[in-house]
């Protein structure tokens, strides 16, 4: 009976557990000695959660075929919204300079880029699913690359580096799932690696030799090989130029990431205080609502980007382990759904949605421990934010639907 109403019980239960955990943490984040705007955030978050769950249930009522059919309009719509944002978008809170919000009459409705992630994953799934064979050369990748490039460029123009990273993560993950060989993915990623390694000539030289070996072993087309090596050389050359052209705050952020103590009271403050919060949690934490770093405003963005630090401080290593275990299970379950999907579009979409979460989790959680630079990517089901909560539950809905139509689903599950 439960199955009739709730397709893929483990997935939904895990998502509900994570959401409940998340709302509790948002509530705690609002309980501070210093008055904060986050005081009532949990109520809003709860409303969005209810809305998200209802929307997800609605999503499960449509067929995967239908979603494949709406992919193109949804993608075009999201592109349109992203473009429109550059003109009418507004900033919010700490990211006031970033035009990522759409607002009508001063009321912020949401961040279209969250929904654009799903639309892009759908579009990418459609494009990759069309092919009988997985892309074997770089040239074969132009179409999927274009699908990602258009929204990516628009997002980078906001500029929203974090979402841009997520897009690239989804892109590579879905290429992998479509069967693109790992060496080819590596070659594809090589110019970006060059860009980073170019700051140390020796390291970059070593990387270049590795790359050369990879090219000789993988034997792409001559032209591709040459283009790839050229791209790497160009990246290596432009890296310092690019560095110079970065906005000072971006440069500062990267430097602070490498060593937060160079600016402990300003740029380094976030990550230092986040580490202190988490580190002082110990095994069991300081107790729910009792985090002093949070309570006394040492921890910034405690209900959004750094919500995981609140969790680490108040619930300790045990709470962290529980949260990560839930996330891991959610991702396992999603991969399983992708594996058992009845068609390639559903399979790719499921994997794309899972990879989106994966990137969010790694970047956001990694950021709280300074393993990742601070990019302002929210943590799924935890970070306060309506659009994102909604987007996460839409993805749950899509995954549940894909599971419903996939192998292993009981006959009759579809009868509703």
């Amino acid at each position, binding site marked *: 009976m439960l199955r009739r109403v709730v397709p893929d019980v483990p997935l939904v239960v895990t998502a509900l557990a994570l959401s409940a955990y998340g709302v509790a943490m948002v509530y705690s984040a609002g309980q501070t*000695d*210093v008055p904060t705007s986050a005081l009532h955030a949990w109520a809003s978050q709860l409303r969005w959660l209810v809305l998200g769950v209802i929307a997800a249930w609605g999503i499960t009522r449509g067929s995967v075929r239908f979603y494949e059919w709406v992919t193109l309009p949804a993608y075009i719509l999201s592109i349109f919204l992203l473009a429109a944002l550059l003109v009418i978008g507004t900033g919010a809170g700490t990211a006031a300079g970033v035009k990522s919000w759409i607002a009508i009459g001063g009321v912020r409705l949401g961040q279209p880029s969250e929904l654009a992630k799903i639309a892009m994953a759908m579009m990418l799934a459609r494009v*990759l*699913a069309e*092919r*009988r*064979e*997985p892309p074997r050369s770089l040239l074969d990748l132009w179409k999927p690359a274009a699908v990602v490039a258009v929204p990516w460029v628009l997002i980078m123009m906001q500029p929203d580096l974090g979402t841009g990273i997520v897009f690239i993560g989804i892109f590579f993950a879905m290429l*992998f*799932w*479509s*069967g693109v060989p790992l060496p080819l993915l590596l070659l594809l990623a090589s110019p970006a690696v060059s860009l980073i390694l170019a700051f140390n000539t020796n390291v970059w030289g070593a990387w270049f030799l590795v790359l050369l070996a990879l090219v000789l072993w993988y034997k792409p087309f001559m032209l591709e090989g040459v283009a790839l090596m050229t791209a790497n050389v160009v990246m290596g050359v432009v890296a310092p130029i690019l560095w110079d052209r970065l906005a000072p705050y971006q440069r500062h952020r990267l430097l602070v990431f490498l060593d937060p103590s160079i600016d402990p009271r300003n740029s380094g403050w976030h990550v230092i*205080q986040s*580490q*202190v*919060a*988490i*580190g*002082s*949690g*110990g*095994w069991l934490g300081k107790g729910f609502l009792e985090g*002093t*770093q949070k309570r*006394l*405003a*040492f921890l910034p963005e405690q209900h959004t980007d750094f919500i995981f630090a609140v969790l*680490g401080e108040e619930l*300790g*290593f045990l709470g*962290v*382990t529980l949260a*990560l275990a839930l*996330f*891991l299970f959610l*991702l*396992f379950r999603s*991969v*399983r759904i*992708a*594996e058992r999907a009845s*068609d*390639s579009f559903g*399979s*790719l979409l499921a*994997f794309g949605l899972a990879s989106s979460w*994966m990137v969010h989790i*790694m970047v956001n*959680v*990694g950021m709280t*421990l300074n*393993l990742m630079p601070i990019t302002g990517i929210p943590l799924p089901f935890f970070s306060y934010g309506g659009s994102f909560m909604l987007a996460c539950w839409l993805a749950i809905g899509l995954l549940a639907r894909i599971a419903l139509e996939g192998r292993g689903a009981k006959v009759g599950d579809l009868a509703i």
Partner: protein
Amino acid sequence: MSFHPNDLARRARVASWGLVVLFVLLLSAFFRTQILENSRYALQSEENRLREVPLPAPRGIIYGRNNHVIAENVPGYSVLLLSPSADSLRASLNRIATIVPLSSDQIEMAVRRYERAPARPTVLLSDAPFDVVSVLEERRIEFPGLIIQTAPKRFYPDGAAVGSFVGYVGEITDAELASPRYHGYKAGQQVGKGGLEREYEDTLRGREGVRFVEVDARGRVVREAGARQDLLPQAGAPLYTNIDMDLQRFVAGIFADSLQGGAIALDPKTGGVLALYSAPSYDPNQFIGGIPTALWKQLTDDPRHPLYNKVIQGRYPPGSTWKLATAAMALQDGLVTMDEHMPVPCTGGFQFGSRYFRCWDHKGHGSISLAGAIEQSCDVYFYQLGLKLGLANLVAGGLKFGMRERSGIDLPDESRPLFPYADADGYFDRKYGKRGWSQAVVLNLSIGQGENAQTVANMGRFYTALAEGGEAATPEIARRAPRHNRIFTLTDQQMDGLRTALAGVVEAGTARSAQIQGVVLAGKTGTAQNSQDPTRDHAWFVGFAPADNPRIVVAVMLEFGLHGPRAAHIASKIVEAYLHTTTTQFLKAEE
């Protein structure tokens, strides 16, 4: 895409393992931070939120005899400020200055205090008046780092009457912080300055407590109590002294405003200081919570030097009070008896070589005995007695009597008396050149002039030996085991003779004005030449009473007192006040 289930299963395996690896890596990073490095971060988190506010310990109470309170603590308020930076502190202070009176000096002082110890709350006012506190309390919300707490404030009920020995307390200075004596002290703490407060600092200070207040990221005080268990301050131990407050008050009262000098009253048996007063005095209460600049200037500019202790710091030629030292030496060496006359009778002066040395009484005393010479304070007699002793013996005797040593009273900054050292010839050679002096120095030394300047306290100590048969008692303000030191040995007969002669000074001699009804006061006047103003001599009187069983030794010195009898008059009043008001009950000395 290749959508064969086998391919998908393989990729799913790769993806799942990838996930496991990434999550294990992430979790191990948390393990390192939360478990392995927990103590470091826990400490940092506590340092973030807690500020230590020192809770000053109440200083030990200082008692006199009969549990009279000399120094106590009354509730006061201190105003402190927590600031993240010197700039922010300055900004807050400037804003506070708009609602309560705050001089730019006080602001600068607070900023300096902050720079010395940024982690401690900066003391803004260590003794804030109640109206200032209430104004600040009312508008506290505007000053997030403000801490107002009650702090014990030192109070001396008798004020100026005890200013000469009690000292005062004040904020520790940079120089004191740097010295090993104040090891463990922190900037902003109160320490004893001068007097008993400084001498017995270790006893009186107690142990500072700590209150933990919780602050937010901007340094605003969020929780004043209960953030962590406070460490309560430990009050300092009380100090019991020999001071007889009734007598002390009397002594302070007897020195009229025009008088300038010092007096010490000792218990000859124990050396216990019954009273010690230097006139003019100052009220140490005015120094609590910081000495106002104007007051300091007034006190340092005062020509009568109220801050200069005339009992233990001022050095004055002892004049005729010294003649007892010369007499005691000669008697001890058997050079003279009480009845012995000198070869040259006093005709108002004495010819020595080419120089004529005058007696104070130009009319002359004729041929008199030692007893008579003491009674009449005949200089000519003592010139000859000094010559009989000789320079070496005179100096050696003086040294034996402790005339080049501090009295040993338990007060800081006591001056060492001026007196030649054992190699007397060498001393004078160095002072005047090899041929620059003659045996004439002996004449001066024998009557307490010349290279001899004593503190009032040290003369008092010397007279305890005259009262107690040669046992000098070290003056002690704190009640503890007496310290005795035999400085001369005379026969009972000689002692009696000296005592009788000293009684005769008051009975019939130079101090007739000092007679007390029913009590035999024994003592010696002295007039010391004043190096600064030869027309205005210092007046001395040192003595004890009752003569046959001394219970009090008094040394009085009046700067520019002109003549000894004036000092004798004051001394007699002190003795009278003591003997007529105190019972014969003696307090036991305490360790």
